[in-house]
């Protein structure tokens, strides 16, 4: 069973649709009991960082989820805002503390080039920097769908799996032990996105 964590903000339905399309049983839940029983977790996300953290706190999920992921090493994939929430802190709309599972902070996408608009919206590359089960069968030139104004900056270079170049490189995918994150939306990136998601669900 895959549990898609519901904290009142994510694009839950699209993630559920993609996971089910891949033939996995999945459930949308806010209950830690379901998460404990799950084989894998997905932390989706569309929204603002501060509200995401506020909701996770209000649901009483921050501590037990951290225990489940960091101590019990339950595999988890964070998508977009979900991956950003895994960082220690964020500068979106003031300073906010994150879940702190990944050593890094969330910062605004800055581009020098006036031609490059922010938010970064559309199909763009994923420059694969490390071998990962996540990337099995994914061609080097595969395109993924991004839509964001902020991104995670990993302190530990070893955590970076892939980058994207938008007026400068930023972390597009990371992995720290059992914790995965993608800034792009695999559930919205057609074939390659679904394959990447399948790699996480099947192989990891």
């Amino acid at each position: 069973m895959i549990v898609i964590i519901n904290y009142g903000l994510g694009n839950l339905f699209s993630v559920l649709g993609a996971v089910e399309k891949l033939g996995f049983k999945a459930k949308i839940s806010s209950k830690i009991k379901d998460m404990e029983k799950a084989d894998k977790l997905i932390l989706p996300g569309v929204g603002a960082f501060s509200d995401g953290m506020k909701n996770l706190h209000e649901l009483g999920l921050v501590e037990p989820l951290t225990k489940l992921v960091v101590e019990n090493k339950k595999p988890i994939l964070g998508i977009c805002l979900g991956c950003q929430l895994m960082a220690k802190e964020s500068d979106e709309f003031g300073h906010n503390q994150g879940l702190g599972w990944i050593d890094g902070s969330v910062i605004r996408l800055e581009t020098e080039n006036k031609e490059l608009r922010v938010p970064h919206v559309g199909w763009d590359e994923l420059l694969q920097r490390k071998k990962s089960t996540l990337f099995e069968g994914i061609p080097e030139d595969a395109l993924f769908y991004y839509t964001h104004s902020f991104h995670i900056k990993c302190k530990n270079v070893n955590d970076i799996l892939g980058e994207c170049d938008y007026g400068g490189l930023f972390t597009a995918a990371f992995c720290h032990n059992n914790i995965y994150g993608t800034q792009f939306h695999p559930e919205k990136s057609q074939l390659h996105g679904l394959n990447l998601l399948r790699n996480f669900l099947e192989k990891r």
Partner: protein
Amino acid sequence: MLRKRLITVLTFNDGVLFRTKLFNPDYRYTHNFIDAWSIDEIVALDVTRPGQGDKENFYKMVKHLASKCFVPLAAGGGVRTVDDFKKLLSIGADKVIINTEAVRRPELITEAANLFGAQCVVVSIDAKKHEDGSYEVFTEFGTKPTGMKPEEWAKKAQKLGAGEIMITSIERDGFLEGYDNQLNKMVSEAVDIPVLVCGGAGKWQDFVDGFEKGKASAVCTTNIYHFTETSIKSAKSYMKNAGINVRL
């Protein structure tokens, strides 16, 4: 490098796709085929006039599209409140499009951006060209003049927190004679956020012109009956040959 986007706009009247094939509304046709093609994004718009239908019928369509199409989905039409945003996002939309209400109550842009992130808020602007060559923003299905200039309204919307602007030329809509790239360029140059251009595309070269002359980030088309199995691919091959960086 970020690719230029080709977006299909689907308009629904009380849950039924507005365009028809051989005069039969066949909405299954649309969502079954879209994902197999290389369309970059879908926009679903509820164009039901007030009191003429049940909103639930549109929500059903959005939900269906979201479960079948693994590409980004923006939805809108009649969005008035943050709760309307929540509803659309909860059934699978990735972004929400607002138009009339954003003019009436610009704070909605900020409220939504603070809650859902700027990338979620698409401000749609319908503009009409007057005889003297000036442009004006119209709301309520293009019927109500606002006295605002499209480029100024776009700028203000960006400032309030919009993540993207969708600009539609009212008189070009449905005429298949090409976009109003004077309007598109003016709006695109006024803002730093992506601009989606709409209204008038009838041939592949119109898409190329939308990018080159209209400075668009994405080109939209509502004329889905153009799109048979091969047409998105051939549109994109055409654009690629014309030097536009698209996703094939």
